[in-house]
């Protein structure tokens, strides 16, 4: 379980996260939705200790990760996989070396076993024969999927996905949605998914939480969110330019 208590984070004078509370139950998928720039990626980075809150606590597996030192963080992070919004592939390494990065470093598997696993993970995200390519030779959507393959390579307990379907065609988006659902079902992963894609949110989420002005303003199951009375949430999920959300500023 991941539990965020009264998390506050400012960049300079800009308050991005404002006394935010959120609970991610074990073995469930929580989808975080919200407008571009509202702080979803920032929130995700707090959950794995890449950013430290100004105040508040982030409890993962019973430990407040905001208080851990580097060694403690590394221990916790071995249970995580993270897909970055930008994919963040290592551009000096090949696709195979990227996907096999943690396998090579943290397991005693032979190169042949790793090659096989890399191939399997790439197949899961719909890629083949790209092992020897460099990230600069891939399309945006392919990079995203290699990033996903790298993130799930170690079968982590907790997966953080930052916009897994952005930049993918509709068919590929659906394949990735199914993959996320399957991973959660088969491997009993705990997942946090940041997305703008409402179709995907309804399909994969056990719970959907909407972030607005630095807080979670509403959370519930997909049907609860679909039938909400909250006008802000309604405006967002219906994609309307008219409503309580200020479009400028």
């Amino acid at each position, binding site marked *: 379980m991941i539990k965020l208590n009264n998390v506050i984070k400012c960049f300079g004078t800009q308050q991005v996260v404002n006394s935010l509370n959120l609970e991610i139950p074990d073995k469930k998928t929580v989808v975080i939705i919200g407008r571009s720039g509202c702080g979803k990626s920032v929130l995700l*980075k707090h959950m*794995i*200790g*890449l950013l430290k809150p100004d105040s508040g606590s982030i409890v993962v597996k019973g430990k407040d990760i905001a208080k851990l030192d*580097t060694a403690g*963080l*590394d*221990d916790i*992070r*071995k249970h*995580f*996989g*993270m897909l*970055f919004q*930008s994919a*963040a*592939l*290592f*551009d*000096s390494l090949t696709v195979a070396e990227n996907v096999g*990065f*943690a396998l090579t*470093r*943290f397991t005693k598997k032979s190169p042949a076993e790793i090659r096989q696993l890399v191939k399997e993970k790439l197949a899961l995200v719909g890629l083949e024969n790209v092992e020897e390519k460099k990230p600069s030779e891939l399309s945006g959507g392919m990079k995203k999927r290699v990033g996903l393959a790298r993130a799930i390579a170690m079968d982590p307990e907790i997966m953080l996905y930052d916009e897994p379907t952005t930049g993918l065609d509709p068919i590929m988006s659906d394949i990735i949605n199914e993959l996320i659902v399957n991973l959660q079902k088969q491997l009993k992963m705990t997942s946090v998914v940041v997305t703008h894609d409402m179709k995907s949110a309804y399909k994969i989420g056990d719970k959907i939480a909407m972030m607005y002005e630095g807080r979670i303003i509403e959370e519930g199951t997909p049907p609860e969110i679909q039938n909400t009375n909250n006008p802000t949430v309604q405006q967002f999920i219906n994609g309307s330019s008219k409503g309580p959300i200020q479009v400028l500023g």
Partner: protein
Amino acid sequence: MLKNVFEYTGKKVTVFFFEAGKITSLFGQVIYWTFKKPSEVKSIFEQMVIIGNKSLGVVTITSLSTGMILALQTGTAIERKISGAANMLGGIVSLALTRELAPVLIGLVMAGKIGSAIAAEIGTMNVTEQVDALKTMATNPVKYLAVPRFIAAIFMLPLLTIYADLLGTLGGLFISLNIFDGTTGSYFESLNMYMRLDDVFKGLFKTIFFGAIIAVIGSHKGFETEGGAEGVGKSTTSSVVISSMLILVTDYILTAFLW
């Protein structure tokens, strides 16, 4: 007005000490990981090859021309008063090269060539979230990125300096033979007479520090890079400026202690 001056100076001084603190802390971490577990062996060799490949050309040109210039300048100056400059050139050129010119020039050239590359590479990884990605995979970026570059630099700078010592000495010989009618025998005789082996070793010893400066400042600037391609450009430039200054200052201090 006066208040502004104080405020400005105060800010600059604070920033200076803040940065100096960060560099010291990074240096400490690098040393710690260098002696703790020298993992990433493959990466160390890779970096050594990269440094060698990148710099062999510039080091060749720098050292050869420095040796030749040195011989030409001192030779013509000596000839004003006494004839037979060729008999002294070997000693003059090799002393100046091994004690001072080869180490410091190689240091400066490498700051431009290798230090900037380290800052640009780590800086790009930083602004494209690759450094964050390393962290999420429980990999310490200092250990994975900075330490191999550090070890490679402190090995490669002395090696390249030995090469520069040799090549510069040969450049001096070339001038001695062709401009001052010297002989190979007399060139090496004077070299033998004036130069001691510890001159060479002390010169090489200095370059270990220069290598450390280049790698640590390059890595520091890389890890501190913010704000996209523009930020990478700024880091690259300032890594060269800072490490060049530090090399010159360190050179003076080491020279004062060593001889």
